């Protein structure tokens, strides 16, 4: 009985903290995306560079982030996993993480004109159902920043 109460309290507390953290994170992501709207253009596929303009520098830029899923979201995902379907609680965490990683990459290359061939690499550090702790995802975004003369 006591164990059930502890689980219920943890669920309620982590539901509140998790949604507050997520809301604030989305707010900051949106603000920073708007601030960067006229800064380096990001492309995901271009591999060759054909332009007459002189290039001053070419460099590899990266952005990394580790986001924790949280007890409540992991609990909901585990339940939903039994029945199948979309795991919306995990989707939002991955979406936040990827956008954050791309933003960090762009903020590092603030003076550049283009970032081309952006790649995103994701790994879940603890799988769902792992006993040790709740899952976290580690994300590295990388791209080539090109600055004109």
């Amino acid at each position, binding site marked *: 009985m006591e164990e059930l109460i502890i689980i219920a309290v*943890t669920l309620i*507390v*982590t539901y509140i*903290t*998790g949604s507050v*953290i*997520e809301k604030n*994170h989305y707010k900051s992501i949106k603000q920073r995306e708007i601030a960067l709207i006229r800064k380096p253009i990001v492309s995901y596929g*271009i*591999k*060759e*560079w054909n*332009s007459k303009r*002189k*290039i001053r520098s*070419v*460099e*590899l830029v*990266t952005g*990394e*982030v*580790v*986001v*924790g*899923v*949280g*007890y*409540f*979201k992991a609990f909901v995902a585990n339940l939903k996993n039994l029945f199948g379907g979309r795991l919306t609680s995990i989707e939002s*965490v991955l979406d936040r993480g990827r956008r*954050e990683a791309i933003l960090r990459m762009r903020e590092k290359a603030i003076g550049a004109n283009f970032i*081309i*061939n952006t*790649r995103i*690499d*994701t*790994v*879940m*550090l*603890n799988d769902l159902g*792992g006993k*040790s*702790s*709740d899952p*976290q995802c*580690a994300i*590295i975004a*990388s*791209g*080539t920043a*090109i600055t004109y003369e």
Partner: protein
Amino acid sequence: MILTNIESVPGYKILAQYGLVSGSTVRAKNFVLDFGAGIKNTFGGELKSYTELLMESRKEAVNRMKEQAQMMGANAIINVRFATSAVTAGAAEVYAYGTAVKVEPVEG
């Protein structure tokens, strides 16, 4: 040393290529920070200490790759890719690999 993740270096031409170079690191934080991150993870949100760990590992992997390329006599690495994998809880591997080449600026 110029690094790119495309198949050329814009504004330069490739003179010679030396093949694959790579670097990897496996890093873990100490158990005190693991404990702190575990608590943070329960509530959700970014885990700053693990983000720093990931950044350090990425730098270290890239540095090892660069050293290897320098020994070969290359001055650029093209097509750099990153791969990450989870070893155990709190430890992550970062692997960076690319092709070492010698480049020269294009005249005009």
